[in-house]
């Protein structure tokens, strides 16, 4: 047992020494992903980490209220509108604001699609788009050319 | 009465391996069909917006109904204290569990969104008899499982009778529930009838017993175990009564439906029309499923304790299949009265004016149904191999001596 402990202590020291060199973050397949910012209102929750973790909780909670009780949030004025339509409308676009389709011509899922990019990376299937439209409608105004997705 | 010894099947014979391969193949077909339909949607089935429940449901309902009927033999032994049947109780209970598993699997795999199945338990709609049925199935597994356990574990002998009674009551509720899936369809003239519940129970008696007889005779024949004629004759007499009772209920059902003006069109089309359902009803249900089996069982002849009983049981299953086909699909096939009894629809793009809706099942549906059947018998086969369900001998001399005089 004492051997193990020694090994760990040694490892930790090594870690501290090498932590500087491992600092540079690597580019994963996600690193390439860009999406435009939309003019005016900020996104519902301006916290990428929070949305990455809990987007389904926000969506599922509100979808029950919308579908079953008829609670709809004004698409333009309400900031806490988690309708999937609104998500898609801003996010499923390329840098020029053009809609990005979820499925490529061959029927294969498009890893460039905003939702699919992460889901593709983490191999989690999406159930939403068997019913919901995954393509934006209308137009959005783009202010910044593109924003690198922060790691 | 000798103490009954139970022994597993050895499971090494060629016939065993052949059957195992056959049933596994059937189950694999079912799985293939499921994954195909899950991918392509129900577009590749013969079901449509008129015939919304098709062949898979016929298979599923028949297996589920047969499941509760197969438990009958165990109930007669335990609840009604008929000693002759007690050695059959384990086979009976295991067969019923297997049949229910096969049926429920088919029912579930036919769903449009099988991956939403968890909502069945998390958002339960208490006004839906279907939702109640979904609770009744696990309950049946639980009660029958406990019952089986009390039979096999001698230390739990004290609970044997109460467990058997509970399973018996549960199975009656279960089959009533299955019948009421159709009996409570207020909008469909062809279903909506209280008699559906008892009719399903009586049908379960006959088809469940038929499945039991086939299983018993085939198993004992192939494993070279003795199976006495006295026992078979008792089963034969039971089968006669059940076939007759099921037929009686069917007659009353069709009679009342025919007598009511609301459903007379539908009934006269079913009984005297030119569709496949009429043929299935008369040739399948009446001739093959009722008259021939009754003749086989009742006309005195040599060797009646073997071939005749087995054939009759097979025919009863075929007949019951036809009956459910007509009940489930035939009733949907006749255009529904959508406006009111004072109006007749003469033109519609949605088939309301058709003489009847045509249903031609695809091979996927057949495969799904056969998959359920395959799974059932795979479970039966391996259950017999792994567990001590089968009495070593069911020869007359080894059974309850009082049975002979009774």
């Amino acid at each position, binding site marked *: 047992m004492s051997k193990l402990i020694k090994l760990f202590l040694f*490892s930790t020291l090594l870690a*501290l020494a090498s932590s500087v060199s491992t600092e540079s*973050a690597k580019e994963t397949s996600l690193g390439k992903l860009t999406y435009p910012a939309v003019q005016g209102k900020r996104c519902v929750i301006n916290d990428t980490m929070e949305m990455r973790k809990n987007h389904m909780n926000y969506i599922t909670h509100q979808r029950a209220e919308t579908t079953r009780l008829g609670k709809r949030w004004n698409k333009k004025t309400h900031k806490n509108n988690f309708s999937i339509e609104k998500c898609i409308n801003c996010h499923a676009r390329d840098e020029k604001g053009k809609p990005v389709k979820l499925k490529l011509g061959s029927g294969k899922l498009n890893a460039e699609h905003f939702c699919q990019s992460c889901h593709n990376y*983490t*191999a989690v299937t999406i159930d939403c788009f068997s019913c919901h439209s995954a393509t934006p409608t209308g137009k959005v105004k783009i202010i910044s050319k593109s924003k690198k997705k922060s*790691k | 009465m000798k103490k009954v010894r139970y022994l597993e099947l050895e499971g090494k014979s060629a016939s065993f391996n052949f059957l195992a391969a056959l049933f596994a193949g059937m189950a694999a077909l079912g799985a293939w069909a499921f994954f195909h339909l899950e991918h392509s949607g129900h577009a590749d089935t013969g079901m449509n917006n008129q015939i919304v429940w098709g062949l898979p449901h016929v298979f599923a309902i028949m297996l589920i109904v047969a499941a509760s009927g197969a438990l009958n033999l165990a109930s007669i032994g335990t609840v009604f204290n008929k000693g002759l049947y007690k050695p059959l109780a384990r086979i009976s209970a295991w067969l019923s569990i297997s049949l229910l598993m096969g049926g429920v699997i088919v029912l579930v795999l036919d769903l449009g969104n099988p991956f939403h199945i968890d909502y069945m338990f998390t958002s339960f709609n208490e006004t839906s008899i279907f939702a109640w049925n979904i609770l009744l199935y696990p309950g049946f597994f639980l009660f029958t499982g406990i019952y089986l356990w009390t039979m096999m574990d001698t230390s739990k002998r004290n609970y044997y009778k109460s467990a058997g009674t509970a399973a018996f009551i549960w199975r009656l509720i279960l089959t009533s529930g299955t019948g009421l899936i159709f009996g409570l369809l207020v909008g469909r003239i062809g279903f909506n009838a209280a008699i559906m519940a008892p009719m399903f129970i009586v049908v379960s008696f006959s088809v469940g017993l038929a499945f039991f007889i086939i299983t018993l005779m085939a198993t004992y024949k192939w494993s070279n175990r003795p199976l006495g004629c006295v026992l078979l004759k008792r089963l034969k007499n039971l089968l006669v009564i059940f076939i007759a009772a099921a037929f009686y209920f069917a007659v009353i059902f069709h009679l009342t439906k025919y007598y009511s003006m609301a459903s007379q069109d539908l009934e006269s089309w079913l009984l005297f029309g030119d569709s496949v359902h009429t043929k299935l009803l008369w040739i399948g249900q009446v001739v093959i499923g009722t008259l021939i089996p009754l003749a086989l069982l009742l006309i005195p002849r040599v060797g009646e304790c073997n071939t005749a009983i087995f054939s009759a049981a097979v025919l009863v299953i075929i007949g019951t299949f036809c009956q459910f086909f007509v009940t489930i699909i035939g009733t949907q096939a006749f255009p529904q009265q959508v406006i009111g009894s004072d109006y007749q629809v003469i033109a519609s793009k949605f088939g309301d004016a058709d003489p009847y809706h045509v249903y031609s099942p695809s091979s996927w549906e057949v495969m799904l149904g056969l998959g359920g059947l395959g799974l059932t018998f795979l479970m039966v086969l391996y259950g017999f191999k792994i567990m001590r369900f089968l009495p070593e001998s069911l020869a007359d001399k080894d059974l309850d001596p009082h049975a002979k005089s009774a």
Partner: protein
Amino acid sequence: MSFLSVTYILLFYAATIILFVGVGRRIYKYAKTPAPLKIPTMPAPTTKVGVAARLTREVVFFESLFKANLWTWIFGWMFHASLLIAFFRHLRYVVNSDTFLIGPVIHWHLLQLAGQYTSFTLIIGLAGLLARRIFVDRVRYISAPSDYLMLLLIIGIGVTGALMTFVAHTDIVALKDFVIGLFTFSFSALPTSLLLLLHLGLVIVLMIIFPISKLLHAPGLFFSPTRNQVDNSREKRHIADWAKPLDETRGKS
């Protein structure tokens, strides 16, 4: 990169080395240990194919446990089957949606749905095994602290995993970056979530403990003479390797 991330990275490498070297050594030892006698549990298969089939049944269904003790089998099998599904579900941290595994090998959607619920069956199975050690007198008597430790350790892993699925989600994109980083030696920070740290910490402990614990029954099963021997003692004389020279000298004399 934080001190915590670096620690976990190093611990993972250390644990992996310990696990593979340790288990490898054990397997080598098992393989070298002679079986002096022909002792397959009867009835045993008489051919090598039969032995393979028997071992397969043993691995997949836990056949002998089924025959020995039904309760233990129910909980044990439930736990191991859930563990298998959990393993497949965790594959998403190393492969992406384009993997060849999806489709013909694994029905991903089914796996995700099943995986959520098997976290419960996993915990229930382990809880049953723990209850067995606590409440069955005969088993309690022979239970060593390490028996409890193993159960509690895996229960801990299961519970923290389930909590991350159902209560406090983890940023799995960042987690995957971390895991991929371990494989490609281009390191990413570990997302700081207490549950995740606990979960991974317990996994590391399990990996380290594995080669010196009863969990070695996993590879050990394949080397157990009662299971892996052919019942051919009449047809073929069985001589252990170390006995061969002795045997030869005896033959000559």
